[in-house]
């Protein structure tokens, strides 16, 4: 078991901080355990990869509206519960800092150091008008379901978050 390279694939569909934390806690731990880790980011999960700020990509009117309404980057995401218009996540971040827990940006930095692979879903990008230039540089591939499934087929653990 120890010598063969085990693989794990995660789908991050959700764009909330708590779910992203769960995803990256598993990703970093798996990488530390010697797994090859791939995360497929789709729908709201793409927010975790967004650079934030003004988009330079071309967008239709509806996509512009979507971009404006669907805010969020790894530094600023809502919670699934107790969001309280953004006060919840700030309190959670403060609590985590007091407890010396790793924040989402910390975990993401560790994930990259351990070569966790990021794939961004091109279909979700297309619908939401998210351009490659809107995403952080760390994204390894822009791809679709077949790429994910090909990766998932050879992996031992697959999770949808």
């Amino acid at each position, binding site marked *: 078991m*120890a010598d063969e390279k085990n693989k794990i694939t995660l789908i991050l569909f959700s764009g909330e901080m708590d779910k992203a934390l769960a995803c990256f806690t598993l990703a*970093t*731990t798996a*990488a*530390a*355990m*010697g797994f090859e880790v791939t995360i497929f980011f789709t729908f709201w999960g793409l927010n975790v990869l967004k650079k934030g700020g003004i988009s330079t990509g071309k967008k239709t009117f509806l996509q512009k509206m979507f971009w404006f309404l669907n805010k969020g980057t790894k530094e600023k995401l809502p919670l699934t519960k107790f969001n309280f218009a953004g006060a919840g996540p700030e309190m959670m971040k403060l609590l985590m800092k007091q407890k010396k*827990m790793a924040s989402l940006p910390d*975990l993401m930095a560790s994930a990259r150091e351990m070569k966790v692979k990021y794939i961004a879903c091109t279909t979700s990008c297309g619908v939401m008008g998210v351009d490659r230039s809107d995403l952080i540089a760390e994204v390894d591939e822009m791809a679709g379901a077949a790429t994910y499934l090909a990766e998932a087929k050879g992996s031992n653990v697959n999770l949808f978050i």
Partner: protein
Amino acid sequence: MNDIKFDKELDCLGLYCPVPIMKTAQVINTMKSGEVLEVIADDIGILKDMPAWAMTTGNGFLGAKTEGDIYKVYVKKK
């Protein structure tokens, strides 16, 4: 159980999952085969997580000591 000799020490006091495991993996990478790492933590999860990590990565788990609220676990590099 009282006397486990180790070559390196890793202080993970105050740190929660998954940080102690990540740090252990990083430090083990810098060590030589057969060397022993002592990891000191106060998150009780380490007692289960470290043997699981060692088993999966093929490193040796030599045991754990509990001193009040502090846990010391020992890993031998494969």
